[in-house]
């Protein structure tokens, strides 16, 4: 039996559907069934019947749980369902809960899986995306967290049973006091399209065109480390080895030379476009499409072209 943990607050996220799909495919591979455990009061859980989930355990009594409570919830569900493998998304919550569950169950954890198990090993990215590793779990019980935007969402029609499931999980010790929204921005870690700027843009006052291009494309904005360090852009936009690692479908790098540390954060992008004045910039070696030119000439032209394209598409 495969157990998937997913958060289902508000609109069910892509990461949740990816984890569910991974679990369902793994269940199919092993001729077994797949149960999903979640918390809260979402009424749209039937959606998972399109993604191969046979049963849902819903802890409706649990509101704003911390990682210790979620660990207890998942461990209780794993015992109830006699789960051999437990699947998480390798997102903020998964990073906190999956290792807790693994430690509680003495189960080996593979974090950041990018493919289904093959010949008893699971593929993950290592060295910040500069290499891949095949990991074997040596324990009977296994925990796997799935790298967002890596395994896809599959459609498998099932009928689904939703059961209320409220085991004892204690009280929350970690309390969320306040949530601040970044108004109008697209969240960078989950963005499918990203427009990123570097020192080649010469100053924070020149980010208007980056933001305009991003808005037109429906993309998130990002930046290189020097730009975040000198305060031109906020830290949460820094992508790279010591910032955040992203895997969008399209990454447009403008005025970024492409140091190895920056590439480590973006090399899982499906398509990379590089715009740089320096034809020798190392980023061109990692790019799919390149333009050697001045950002202040190329980006306004690009904005016009995208406008035309969008107008034609509508």
């Amino acid at each position, binding site marked *: 039996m495969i157990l998937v943990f997913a958060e289902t607050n508000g609109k069910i996220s892509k990461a949740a559907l990816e984890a569910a799909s991974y679990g369902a495919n793994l269940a199919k591979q092993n001729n077994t069934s797949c149960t999903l455990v979640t918390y809260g009061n979402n009424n749209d859980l039937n959606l998972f019947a399109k993604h191969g989930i046979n049963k849902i355990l819903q802890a409706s009594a649990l509101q704003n749980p*911390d990682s210790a409570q979620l660990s207890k919830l998942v461990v209780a569900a794993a015992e109830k369902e006699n789960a051999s493998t437990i699947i998480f998304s*390798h997102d*903020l919550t998964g*990073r*906190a809960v999956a*290792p*807790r569950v693994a*430690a*509680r169950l*003495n189960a*080996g*954890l593979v*974090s*950041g899986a990018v493919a289904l198990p093959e010949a008893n*090993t699971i593929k*993950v990215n*290592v*060295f*910040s995306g*500069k*290499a891949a*590793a*095949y*990991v*074997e*779990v*040596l324990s009977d019980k296994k925990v796997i967290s799935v790298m967002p935007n890596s395994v896809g969402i599959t459609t498998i029609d099932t009928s689904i049973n939703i059961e209320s499931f409220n085991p004892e999980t204690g009280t929350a010790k*970690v*309390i*969320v*006091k*306040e*949530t*601040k929204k*970044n108004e109008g921005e697209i969240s960078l870690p989950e963005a499918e399209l990203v427009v990123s700027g570097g020192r080649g843009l010469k100053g924070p006052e020149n980010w208007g065109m980056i933001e305009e291009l991003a808005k037109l494309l429906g993309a998130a904005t990002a930046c290189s480390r020097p730009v*975040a360090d000198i305060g031109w852009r906020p*830290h*949460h936009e*820094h992508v790279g*080895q*010591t*910032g*955040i690692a992203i895997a969008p*479908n*399209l990454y447009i790098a403008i005025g970024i030379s492409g140091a*190895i*540390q920056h590439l*480590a954060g973006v090399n899982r992008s*499906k398509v990379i*476009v590089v715009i740089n004045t320096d034809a020798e910039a190392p980023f061109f*070696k990692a790019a*799919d*499409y*390149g*333009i050697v*030119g001045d950002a202040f000439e190329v980006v306004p*032209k*690009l904005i016009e*072209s995208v406008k*035309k394209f969008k107008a034609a598409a509508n």
Partner: protein
Amino acid sequence: MKILVCISKAPDTTTKIAFTDNDTKFNESGVQYIVNPYDEWYALVRALELTENSGGNVTTITVGSAADEAIIRKALAIGANDAVRIDAVPEDAYYVAKQIASYAKDKNFDLIMCGKETIDYNGSQVGAMIAELLDMPYVSLATKLDVNNDTATLERDIQGGTEVIECKLPLVLSAAKGMAEQRIPNMRGIMAARTKPLTVIQPVEAPKLTAYKKFTLPPAKSACKMISPDNVEELVNLLHTEAKVI
């Protein structure tokens, strides 16, 4: 305040990654090791700032061989008060977490801090495992940390915003970018580090639950298609018809 900072070694960020023994082992020849940046720049430096403001002690802990003492001395040079090395090879996250939890369990640390992940195996596992083994609360990827009396206030980036979190000490957390700024050790720190206590202890019995069987390098990228700056429309066209990403 007593703080334990988990420090791990990692290959320097400019290392060219290669493998040996039929692609089953990381090729260490010529590799310069550093303190894992997340452990050093964010966790360790913030721990030092907190104790500098309100008193206390920062201990670093590393599971590793004698060769790791160079990076441990670096952490001491930056300002940690003392260090512990558990003499074992850190091959599996559970094994490492078990070692650190077993050391920390009767030491009454107020905070146990880790970096977000190491830049080599990128597991992001050890901190939360320590929390579970010690029955302590855990916050992943904190970007800010303040402590007032017995309460920690943290921030972290969530989808589309940030959240402010409170938790009574003791607490285990992982530190991400934003928590502190990198510190370069000065000569006085480097001299002082030589005589700061570095205790070596033997590992406890613990199983290894995972094994890295094989490594591969990503396939070489096909050549970049160059587009003239006078023909930007062609780029939009290719992104739509060829790459199919817009």
